[in-house]
C-alpha cells in the first residue's frame, strides 16, 4: 500500500501539464477529427512517456528507444517509408496537364526561408534555425528528415509543430489569404482546360523528377526518390494491389509508429521549455509566410497575364495535401458558388509536395556547405 501511495509523490506539475497536452491531442483527434491517425498515438504516447517512474528502465522505454533509433534517428526509415504511401496517394495529372502550376509550389516555400532568417536573428545556430524553418515545408516527413540530418536538438518540438500545423491548415490559411487578396481577386474564375495526359507521361514523370532532383539537389534524393517510387507504383498499372497497400496499410502502420515515436520525444523535462514555445511560434510564422509567398507571386504574375489567375490558388502551394487545396476551393465557392478552383488548387498543392522536398534538400545542402560538411 505504501508503495502505491509513494508513486503519487513522484507526480510533478510538469507531468500534469504533459498529460493535459496528451489529452488535448487525443481530443483534437477524436472530436475535431484532426489528423487522427497521427494525433491520437501522439497524444496517448505523450501521456505514456510522462508517467512517474513507470517509463525509466521498463520495456516501454526500450521499445520507444528502438523505434526512435531505427525509425527516425538512425536510418530515417519512417519518413521515407511514409513517403512511399504518400507518393502512391498522389495523382499528378492536374499538374502534368498544366506544369506551369509548379511555380506556385516553389513560391509557397517562402515561409521556410523567411523563418530561417528570423530564427537566426533570434539566436538559433544555423543547424537549428534551418531545422525549425523546415516546419514551413508543411510536410511532416521532410521536417523529421531535415532536422535529423542536421542534428537539431529540437527534434521533438519541430515534429509536434509540423504535424499540428498541418492539421490546422483550415484555420491558419483563410485569414491570411483574405488579408492578402481583394474580394474581386477572390472572385476570379479560372477555366479548367484539363488536357489528357498519356500513360507514358504519367509513368515517366516520377522517374524524370527523381533524376533531375537527384542531380541538382542530391540531399533531397532520398525523400523525392521514395515519394516518386510510390507514385510509380501507382501509375505503372501492373501493381494495383501493392499501390493500394502502400496507400492504406503501409501508410497507416507507419503513421501509427511515427506518432508514438514522436511522443517519445515529448518528455516534460525536454518539452516544457521556452524554446518549445518559440519554435511553435516560428512554425506558425513559417506557415503564414508560405501562404503569403504563394498568393503574392500569383498577384505579381497577374500583372503580366492576359488570362488572370485567382491568386488564392498560390496559397495551395504549401504541401499540406490535400487540406490546402480544399481550403482554397472552399474559399472560392464562398465568394462565388460557381467558382470551382479544385482542379487548379490540387495541381498547385501536389507541386507544393515536390517543391517542399526540394526546399528541404537545398536547405540541407546549403547549411552543410556553410558549416563545412
Amino acid at each position, binding site marked *: 500500500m505504501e508503495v502505491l501511495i509513494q508513486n503519487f509523490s513522484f507526480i510533478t506539475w510538469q507531468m500534469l501539464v504533459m498529460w493535459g497536452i496528451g489529452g488535448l491531442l487525443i481530443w483534437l483527434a477524436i472530436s475535431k477529427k484532426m489528423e487522427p491517425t497521427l494525433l491520437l498515438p501522439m497524444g496517448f504516447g505523450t501521456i505514456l512517456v510522462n508517467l512517474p517512474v513507470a517509463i525509466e528502465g521498463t520495456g516501454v522505454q526500450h521499445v520507444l528507444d528502438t523505434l526512435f533509433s531505427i525509425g527516425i534517428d538512425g536510418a530515417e526509415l519512417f519518413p521515407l517509408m511514409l513517403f512511399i504511401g504518400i507518393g502512391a496517394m498522389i495523382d499528378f495529372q492536374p*499538374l*502534368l*496537364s498544366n*506544369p*506551369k502550376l*509548379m*511555380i506556385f*509550389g*516553389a513560391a509557397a*516555400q*517562402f515561409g*521556410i*526561408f*523567411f523563418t*530561417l*532568417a528570423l*530564427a*537566426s*536573428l*533570434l*539566436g*538559433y*545556430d*544555423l543547424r537549428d*534555425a*534551418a531545422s525549425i524553418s523546415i516546419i514551413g515545408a508543411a510536410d511532416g516527413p521532410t521536417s523529421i528528415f531535415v532536422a535529423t540530418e542536421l542534428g537539431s536538438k529540437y527534434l521533438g518540438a519541430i515534429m509536434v509543430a509540423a504535424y499540428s500545423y498541418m492539421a490546422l491548415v483550415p484555420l491558419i490559411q483563410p485569414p491570411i489569404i483574405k488579408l492578402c487578396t481583394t474580394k474581386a481577386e477572390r472572385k476570379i474564375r479560372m477555366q479548367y482546360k484539363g*488536357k*489528357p*495526359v*498519356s500513360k*507514358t*507521361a504519367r509513368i*515517366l*514523370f516520377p522517374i*524524370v*523528377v527523381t533524376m*533531375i*532532383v537527384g542531380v*541538382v*539537389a542530391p540531399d533531397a534524393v532520398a525523400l523525392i526518390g521514395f515519394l516518386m517510387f510510390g507514385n510509380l507504383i501507382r501509375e505503372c498499372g501492373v501493381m494495383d494491389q501493392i499501390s493500394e497497400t502502400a496507400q492504406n496499410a503501409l501508410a497507416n502502420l507507419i503513421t501509427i509508429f511515427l506518432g508514438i515515436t514522436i511522443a517519445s520525444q515529448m518528455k516534460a523535462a525536454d518539452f516544457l521549455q521556452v524554446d518549445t514555445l518559440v519554435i511553435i511560434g516560428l512554425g506558425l510564422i513559417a506557415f503564414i509566410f508560405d501562404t503569403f509567398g504563394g498568393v503574392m507571386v500569383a498577384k505579381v504574375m497577374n500583372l503580366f497575364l492576359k488570362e488572370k489567375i485567382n491568386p488564392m490558388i498560390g496559397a495551395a502551394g504549401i504541401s499540406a495535401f490535400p487540406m490546402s487545396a480544399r481550403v482554397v476551393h472552399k474559399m472560392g465557392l464562398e465568394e462565388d458558388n460557381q467558382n470551382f478552383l479544385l482542379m487548379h488548387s490540387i495541381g498547385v498543392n501536389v*507541386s507544393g509536395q*515536390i*517543391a517542399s522536398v*526540394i*526546399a528541404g534538400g*537545398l*536547405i540541407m545542402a*546549403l*547549411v552543410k556547405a*556553410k558549416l563545412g560538411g
Partner: protein
Amino acid sequence: MRIDLLMDALPIMGTGYLGIFIVTGVIIGLVSLLTKLTSKKDN
C-alpha cells in the same frame, strides 16, 4: 538579437529560394516536353 547569425543565414535564404525556382523551372521544362512528346506518340 543576433545580427551576425542573420548575416550568415541571409545568403542561404536568397540562394535557397532562388534555387527552388531554378529546379522547378527545369522540371517544368522537361515535363512540358515530356507531355508534348508522349501526346504526339499517343496520337
